[in-house]
């Protein structure tokens, strides 16, 4: 009788040990699978795949990245659709879903404001806010937190440059401005008249097709800005005396020349009548 009992106990112990070993193996396999997840998005337009730029940003983050999503619980599943994809990019990404009603004091302390949701992206010690639940906004907030500030594209104005409020196409810069903002840059119009003063916090200065000659103070301002380490995108139309007049802009051309940049006055003529 005693032998049977001992035999049973031994068998039970053996089964228990086997089970624990299997649990441990499967646990480790799942831990690794969760940490190094690989996704295959079968949707036609890769709807559930984050862009290469986002993947690059997330993978290059050295410290921890915490996304805090403040909303009411009915908004959480929608957010999870997006944030799960961020979590899939790197094990460093931590996402916290916070119910504003349950955690009212914490919400006030965190600076949560209406309208909901509020999305805070924390990289290291720096926290940035994403304005909406979109990849552009969330990744933009990450980039801002990483770069330690806003990136601003400055458009010059005052000499007949394309307008940033004109979205009709042609010479208007409205669509370009919208696209720039969607790519997580801020935009600013820098008037060169009456006083030409280009702020050094402009990440890049855009001179988009001025129609009139820049006066010397404007030319000097651009020269100073670039020679002090600023970056500029200068686009000049060839001088024309047809319908609208486009001046030669000799002052700016001379400055470009001094930097070794030669402006040609070439024209492309489209005779098809379509353009």
């Amino acid at each position, binding site marked *: 009788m005693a032998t049977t009992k001992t035999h049973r106990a031994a068998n039970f112990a053996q*089964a228990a040990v086997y089970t624990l070993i*299997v649990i441990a193996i*499967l646990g480790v396999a799942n831990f690794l699978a969760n940490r190094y*997840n690989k996704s295959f998005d079968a949707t036609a337009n890769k709807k*559930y795949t984050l862009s290469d730029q986002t993947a690059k940003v997330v993978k290059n983050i050295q410290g921890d990245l915490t996304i805090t999503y403040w909303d009411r619980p009915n908004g*959480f599943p929608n957010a999870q659709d997006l944030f799960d994809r961020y979590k899939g990019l790197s094990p460093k990404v931590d996402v916290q879903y916070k119910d504003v009603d349950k955690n009212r004091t914490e919400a006030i302390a965190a600076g949560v404001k209406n309208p909901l949701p509020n999305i805070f992206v924390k990289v290291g010690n720096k926290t940035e806010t994403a304005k909406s639940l979109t990849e552009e906004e969330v990744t933009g907030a990450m980039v801002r937190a990483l770069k330690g500030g806003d990136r601003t594209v400055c458009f010059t104005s005052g000499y007949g440059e394309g307008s940033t409020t004109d979205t009709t196409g042609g010479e208007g810069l409205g669509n370009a401005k919208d696209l720039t903002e969607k790519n997580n840059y801020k935009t600013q119009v820098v008037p060169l008249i009456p006083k030409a003063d280009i702020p050094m916090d402009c990440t890049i200065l855009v001179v988009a097709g001025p129609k009139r000659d820049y006066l010397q103070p404007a030319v000097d301002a651009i020269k100073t800005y670039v020679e002090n380490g600023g970056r500029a995108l200068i686009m000049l139309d060839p001088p024309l005396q047809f319908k609208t007049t486009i001046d030669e802009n000799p002052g700016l051309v001379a400055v470009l020349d001094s930097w070794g940049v030669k402006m040609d006055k070439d024209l492309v003529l489209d005779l098809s009548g379509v353009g």
Partner: protein
Amino acid sequence: MNTITIARRELSSYFRSPIAYGVMCFFALIVGFFFYSAVRFFLQQSLQATMMGQSVPLNVNEWVVRNVLSNISVVGLFIIPMITMRLFAEEKRTGTIELLVTSPLRDSEIILGKWLAAFILYLAILGISVLDMLVLFAYGNPDWRPMAVGYLGLILQGGCLLAIGAFISSTTRNQIVAGVATFGVCLLLWVLDWVSQFESSKLFSVISYLSVTSHFDSFARGVLDSKDAIYYLSMIVFGLFLTGRSMESIRWRA
């Protein structure tokens, strides 16, 4: 080879009893209802969107297929206990389990054979829902790839719950007890997600990870995540392993 023979014998016993037909009818009715509701809602929304001047058509995969597949995954929790409850419990009740364990067959062959039979029946049941999807192809233009990924998820989830059901069935001689216990475990593995899904503590993360349905979400969207596939495969292995230990215990407890 022995595995196939056992699977064939099990399958024929499923189809000789009213279980298979009953479960199929139940499934066709419920899924048909979900499909009808999803399509009806989709049409209403499409009409509204057109009236509001939206030029891009609504995505049928997003609005119909994803919802129907998610519903099927929940229906699966209810039908799987009906499939697995008799697998081993019936053999135990009639006493044929002793014949099986003392036969030259290996435990693994018996377990795999029985699980395979249940799995094939599950696939046949799942196949009924494909008829609904064919209607979408006849009248619309759904993308078949996310749909295929969704079905792969359902197959893996089914395999996992069937393995758990097989283990529970091997622990009792009463089919009803096996069915109820399997249903309870399936339900638990479903609702685990409710309490822990959006919590960020490590414990809740682990609890949420154990939930069967949370792993199905990405499949329903048309995204194959390796972690979800590995979770299901692990659960299949674990369920079958436990069934093996349970079978073995019949020998040493005798």
